[in-house]
């Protein structure tokens, strides 16, 4: 059949768009003021798409549980974990992290876990928002 795509194309015009929508159609000029207005209820935004369970987002580190065994350093593929010798605790550089969660599995006291946060961008690789300790 020569024009077998035409019924599909016509049916598409009546369906909802398949892509997930951004929170708002046009980017606001000041995000902080925009977020205040959303909290007060003045502006409605499209709800965010939920992340799946056991999503591997930003790493969280429970400092008190850590025993300083350095097993996580041995398995990190990109050398993103640094050991602080005096304190016997670690420091994680998110700029090098590959989000593989291998350190979570190795840790014998389970002090590392992955959260749901994924909005992590920054302009400086070594700024404080990208170092976990």
């Amino acid at each position: 059949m020569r024009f077998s795509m035409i019924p599909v194309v016509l049916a598409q015009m009546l369906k909802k768009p398949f892509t997930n929508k951004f929170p708002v159609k046009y980017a606001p000029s000041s995000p902080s003021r925009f977020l205040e207005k959303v909290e007060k209820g003045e502006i409605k935004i499209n709800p965010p798409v939920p992340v799946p369970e056991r999503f591997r987002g930003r790493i969280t580190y429970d400092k008190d549980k850590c025993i300083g065994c350095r097993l996580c350093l041995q398995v990190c593929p990109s050398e993103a974990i640094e050991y602080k010798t005096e304190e016997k605790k670690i420091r994680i550089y998110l700029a090098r992290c590959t989000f593989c969660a291998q350190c979570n599995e190795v840790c014998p006291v389970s002090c590392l876990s992955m959260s749901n946060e994924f909005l992590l961008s920054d302009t400086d690789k070594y700024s404080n928002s990208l170092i976990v300790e």
Partner: protein
Amino acid sequence: MRGASKTTYQLPIGPIHPALKEPVMFEFKVDGERIIDVDVKLGQVHRGIEWAGTRRNPIQILYLAERICGICSYCHPMSFALAVERAAGIEVPERAQYLRVIQGELERICSHVLWAGVAAHEIGFDSVLFLTWEIREKGLDLTEYLTGNRVTKGITMIGGVRRDITDDMVPKVKQALDYLKEKIDKVQHVFLNDKTIKLRCRDCGVLTKEDALKLCAVGPTARASGVKKDVRLDQGYFAYTDLDFDYVTPDIITGEVKGDVYDRVIVRLLEVKQSINLIEQCLEQMPKGDIVSEPKIPKLLATLKRVNGEGIGRMEAPRGEVFHYVRFTGTGNPYAWKVRAPTYNNILPWIPMLLDQQIADIPIVAASTDPCMSCTNRVAIISNNKRYIMNSEELHRLSIEKTRRLSI
């Protein structure tokens, strides 16, 4: 030789590939519009991965191997794990073998559907591109649900897998598979019955069975020429030896084997159906048990430190046979590691495929072998001793114009 007395043009197409926007370099000798000779140059994106592997222990290398290629990002760490397990003598539990099959086939579905969209785009059929990529989104959603990420899944571990498919996850998997089944039927109907696609692809870029065997072609490129080569059936690994399936060659639908672009389209669409069938068989037959042979990682690392031997691992990626070779000498880090992606064997068959074709056919013939080169170059065309570089937009435009000419 035909073109020797007249002036021949040589066209170099520089490091942006016409079909997949990755860097690869070809030099074509052209007489008018017809191609006479082809020369291949590779290596623009060489990253020194094998050298970096000698400085890391095997668990770190799993994540390094994953990033060799984005679309076959499951096959490289899996064949590395196979090679290490064979060198060290580690036994994989049975449930883990079935889980590995399921993840592999899911990746094959996503990759072939992506390819179908790209091939349609090269012909100029953009509405089919969007139809197929809509299907792929559901496949990627399923991958994200099972592994946590769409690409670079991070599910391989030496001795098993890292995540299980529990009983409450199975209904969602089955729902996604049903959706994929009905949509793939629609795509197959479009590809096989549309006259434009037949006119454009039939008898274009032919690879004979003799050439495919001599040049050691692999994957769907070889199977479309009638060569029955498939690592899952020939040698078997994981749980494929328990499942019921057969080689996919184009004579299942058309009755004869020609080895052109149309045959490769048929082979890939049939393989998607075969993959869905395999996943369903696995979900029924999967036994209960452990998912990894050694859950404590420090113990695994200590075992791997004492290994002294060599091993090979071969797997059937969506594009062909992936090959890994590992040699240990008792220090923990591998002494030597060799990776061979399937596209290297599929590059030399480009030469007989492209002889006597027109320049406007380069994108579709190149795309039909599904090159996944993390190191390909641009195509350079040398014309009348004047080298000029034709970039991907121009080639793409030529390809679309030829389609319009044929359909009017």
